[in-house]
């Protein structure tokens, strides 16, 4: 697949841009974006290629929310041997769909660890050409979010905040909280609500901490190295600590 085509589409589609900006990308997370009116025809081909490149652990999927297109995708994937689970914690990826404001050329791309991943393969090349062949534009984007890290971990209830290695605060993930922590290099703002905590603002230049996915599972961390800041979801009594 050619990343230039994706970015042409990306720039022409404001909704996709804001969608991507709102998704918190972090190490270990990957997303597939596919713009086509008939995702059920093409999704399984792309997933097959991702499997060959060991980018998918297990043949299981779930849906986030509900949309009219779910049924067709569900049927198509089941026919190709994929397993559906209602619980997203049990699956390799979660699917969602969204309508675009404007119609654009069909395309797809894969983002891994915050970077566009170029996968060169004959099947994907043919698929790309096939999607573009009849000139029909599309207004539907389907997103597959691969997030395997969290599956076996329990959800946390508290987040500990460390600055320069010292615990400075402890936040309940149930209560809506916004706090700013001052460091020698600047400041880091944290928001906690609905079982998760995230860095909403930071004085660092790269803002990688702001782009990290909200942390909600035991042991998950968000780090801002320039500010010597660390947020960690406290572990449950399941284990005290881990090695390996």
């Amino acid at each position, binding site marked *: 697949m050619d990343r230039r085509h994706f970015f042409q589409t990306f720039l022409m589609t404001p909704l996709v841009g804001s969608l991507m900006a709102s998704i918190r990308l972090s190490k270990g997370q990957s997303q597939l974006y596919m713009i086509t009116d008939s995702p059920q025809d093409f999704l399984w081909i792309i997933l097959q290629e991702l499997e060959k490149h*060991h980018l998918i652990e297990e043949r299981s999927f779930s849906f986030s929310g509900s949309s009219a297109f779910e049924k067709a995708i569900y049927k198509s994937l089941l026919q190709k041997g994929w397993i559906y689970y209602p619980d997203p914690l049990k699956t390799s990826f979660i699917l969602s769909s969204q309508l675009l404001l404007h119609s654009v050329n069909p395309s797809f791309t894969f983002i891994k660890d915050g970077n566009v991943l170029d996968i060169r393969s004959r099947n994907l090349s043919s698929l790309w050409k096939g999607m573009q062949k009849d000139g029909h534009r599309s207004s539907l984007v389907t997103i597959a979010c691969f997030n*395997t890290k*969290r599956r076996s971990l329990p959800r946390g209830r508290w987040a500990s905040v460390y600055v320069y*290695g010292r*615990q400075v605060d402890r936040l309940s993930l149930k209560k809506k909280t916004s706090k700013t922590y001052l460091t020698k290099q600047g400041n880091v703002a944290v928001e906690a609500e609905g079982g998760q905590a995230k860095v909403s603002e930071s004085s660092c230049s790269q803002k990688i901490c702001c782009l990290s996915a909200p942390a909600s599972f035991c042991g998950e961390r968000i780090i801002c190295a320039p500010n010597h800041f660390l947020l960690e979801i406290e572990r449950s009594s399941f284990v*005290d600590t881990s090695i*390996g």
Partner: protein
Amino acid sequence: MSIPPLVKKIYFVLFLSPLLLFLNCAPQEAWQSASFLSFDTVCEVHLRCPRSKFHLAQEEVQRLFVEIENHFSPRRQDLSSCLVIGLYRRALDFYRQSDGCFDITVGPLTRLWGFLDRPYRIPSPRELKNVLNLVGMEKIKEYEQNLILDPGMELDWGGIAKGLGIDLAYNALVSMGVDRGYINAGGDLACWGKNPDNEDWKVGINHPRRSGYLGILSISGVAAATTGDYQRFFEENGIRYHHIFDPRTGYPAQGKQSVTVIGPEALVCDALSTALFVSENPEHILDKYPQYGSLIVDSEGKISILGKPYSFRLL
């Protein structure tokens, strides 16, 4: 004779209130935690002690870790330091007991494969043959409190220095009177006393291939360390090349995904986990360390438990 009220008041102020004040100000023990970056990883300290003591304890642990980093990191090695000579002698013992499977002279291999300075690469057989001439602890000479290396030799303390740091930190904390807690330096761990639930510490061993745990150790008064092929690696043409080299061949050791060792000293756990990972006959090495037990996951995912049994629950 009754005591006048004024005298009673004076008595209270002079004698009882300081006593009450003292009792209220006695340091309260509580569980305290700290996480900080050291050894290129996130280190955790979790202790039960008064708050004032915890700050001192944390500073001491960080100071010791910095000391270890200063003495043993790849670019800063003082071959005449007592600490370095002392650790070299321990490493030499492991080298001999493991028939060369544990070897701190693999520095040139680490560099050749790109694990020291990227990019990762697969060296040619000729390059490996040349570099293997620089590997082997028998080539190190100790002379008048100095280590003498042949030109081109490089020491890699990665399989033992962290364990030393954990042991030094543990000893410092115990001597400060901290009798419950754990120190975890990115997978090398020491724990003692009871956990907050008044039970042995529950230590999860991360699964080498999946997210989540392989199983849970229930331990106290011991250390543990894990070496795995998933900690630092690259893949090419579907083959995984990791950072644990067989010093005898120059290639990453084959046949195992992870090795966890549990026992009294973190330094020994650290070195043994590397030696057992490399060796084709880990039982033979472990027999020489009867106080230590291990959990080995082979390349097929099969789990073996060897040596002294420690409480372990498979998930």
